[in-house]
């Protein structure tokens, strides 16, 4: 340290501070963009809304901490969902005595008041598709939800701890069943 002139040292310190600010902006932007998606994914794991919100925030703070340490994350979105998934499962495991959160979307969708802009046929179609999604196996549904969040097969595999070829097969089965059930 002492072998460098003081001015350079100070410049380094200032630069670090600037870099930290930039990092804050980057993670904050990602938080803004993806927090609702992560929150919903955590709900789908059975977390109750307050837990899901807290866990979502925790995920982004971990992202910040990790990046701040200088670790490189190739795909932050994939990383975020992987960490969210693991954290969500841990929270669920700690509260295994409690029934998983059920948003009861079916009754929400069935109520005309909830979908005033939809006509009866559209409501029925939506409800039928929702029921078809609910009938998918756990793995099929998780693969589908993560794919809908823009994750690629290897990233989904990394989140769920399965191979990307297994992801492809789960997705194929999911799409096939949805096609069969919906059409």
């Amino acid at each position, binding site marked *: 340290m*002492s072998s460098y002139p003081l001015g350079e040292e*100070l410049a380094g*310190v200032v630069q670090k*501070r600037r870099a930290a600010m930039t990092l804050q902006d980057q*993670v*904050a932007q990602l*938080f803004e963009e993806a*927090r*609702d998606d992560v*929150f*919903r994914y955590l*709900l789908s794991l*059975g977390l109750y*809304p307050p837990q899901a*919100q807290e866990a*979502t*925030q925790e995920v*982004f*703070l971990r992202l*910040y*901490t990790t990046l*701040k340490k200088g670790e490189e994350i190739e795909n932050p979105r994939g990383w975020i969902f992987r960490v969210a998934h693991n954290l*969500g*499962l*841990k929270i*669920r*495991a700690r509260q*295994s005595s409690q029934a*998983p959160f059920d*948003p009861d*979307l079916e009754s*929400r*969708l069935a109520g005309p008041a*909830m979908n005033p802009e939809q006509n009866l046929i559209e409501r029925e179609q*939506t409800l039928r*598709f*929702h029921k078809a*999604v*609910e*009938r998918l196996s*756990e793995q099929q549904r*998780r693969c*589908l939800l993560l*794919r*809908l969040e823009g994750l*690629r*097969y290897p990233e989904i595999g990394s989140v769920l*701890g*399965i*191979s*990307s070829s297994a992801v*492809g097969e789960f*997705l*194929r089965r999911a*799409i*096939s069943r*949805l096609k*069969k059930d*919906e*059409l």
Partner: protein
Amino acid sequence: MKGSSLTLHPEEEQLLRYLDGELPVQASGEVRSHLEACWQCRAALEELQNVVSQCVHYRKNVLQRHLPTPPAPWVDIYRKFDEIDTSVEPVLFDRFLRLLKSPFDTAIKKWAVAAAALLLFVGLFYRYRQTPSVHASELLRQAVVAANAHPLQPRRIQIRTRDRRLTRPAVAPQKTGFSAPDDAASNSLQAMFERANYSWTDPLSAQSFQAWRNQLSDKRDQVSEENQAYRIETSTNASELRNATLTLRTADLRPMEERLEFSNQEWVEITEVSDDTTPPVSRSAAENKRPAAGNAMPPVPEGSNPVSVLAPSASAADELQVVAALHDVGADLGDPVEVSRSQSDVLVSGVGIAPARQQEIKNAIGSKPHVVVRFSDSPPPARAQEQPVTPSDTTAGGDVRQLQSRLAEQLGGRANLEQLAAQVLDSSESLMARAYALRRLAEQFPVVAERELSATDRQLLQRLRAEHSAALRQQATEIDRDLQPILTSVNGDAGSLPPNGIPSEPWQAATEDLFQSARRLDKLLGVMFGAAPSEIPAGQIPAQLKISLAQLRARSDIYERSNK
């Protein structure tokens, strides 16, 4: 290009991968070329795209709109970032920078800069040299307290060096140690630990790390926290053990892994054998040789070597034993369980498996060597009950609808057709589970791997194949029996088309043929009952189905014979 031997069209999975940009470049080019020439596949692709669009619509109009919103306003994330920064960076930085901007004259500023730089240096020194020592010392103290407060089951550890690997109980009995006369390698390891004055009896423990660290006259510590764990790294020149890193789980300060680097350039890594996280059970005081935090690995069976077993890397035989154990509890038929083999371990992984089933699988696997089991702890949310598949009026094209109407008429009504459809599609699903299980065996044990197996293990592999293929054949027979009435009456001119000769290829290749036949049948059944789009004129479906069934049964006959 993969595809049905009859049509050479890409399969649905390939089309989906193509849509998703997940195919390798060459395969993608082949599919693209095929699509340019094939209306049928373009239509199939469009159908897939339609479902994808519906999924996107569902996300937007159902999930985004109707799932509960966060119950509280989102936090000010910048404030949280600052809190993290404050906890990481000395506040001195800010003061220092403010000082630089102050309107002091140059001379004063120079002194101020020098003083601040000194403060900064002292701060950094304190942070990187002193604070971690306090943290390390305190963390180790707490970890020892935690270990003493929670006596748990015995656990097993894996000790790896540059050129060997062994598994043993975490706490080796003092009397025996590594004293087997033929165990020179282990003895040399033990000697290395003893020269460094590091406990060989109980190497993966906070207590041993603390004892070694406390004796050092000169040491440097670093403490970090990541992935739910604290990492304590201590370096020294005052011991033959130059660098030791202990990882403690944040939640309970349980030692999870350790890396030791010695002055002779040797290194040793110690980890728990399994990441089993089932709750610990109490055990007698007599069993508690060391009341340390440990995991729930089953205790070493009585009569077995209680100390250690020098073990080679995981082999095809190890993997086969795991596959056979899973097979015994039916976990190779649809459970989301994967078995993979690395150089060192056979990894059994699964997500979303109910705890009771996890336990069943773990019990089946037992304490086989080189096996790591990783299950998610989460109980899966209750799954919606599978609903019976019914022939769909809307999926099928006009031709198929007519065919279904004829079938319904012959069976005495649509309800009977629906019942038949559910029954046959269930059988087909069981059949496909067997076909997938066989294909996995062929993939896991290619010819080269099979050659590594002993005669006994080859017999075991053969038994697994035989059981799956017999069950597959049984399902095919049931489907044949269930469909015969309608196949005969709807289309009487379909004859069987046996496969061409008996394949002289290895069973692995024959398995792929069998799998493709099963898949072809599954697909045709889906088409006939309106569960999949039709690629062929509906009038030909019964004949194709009959041919497909005959082919599958013939292939499974041959396959079974080849197993004997």
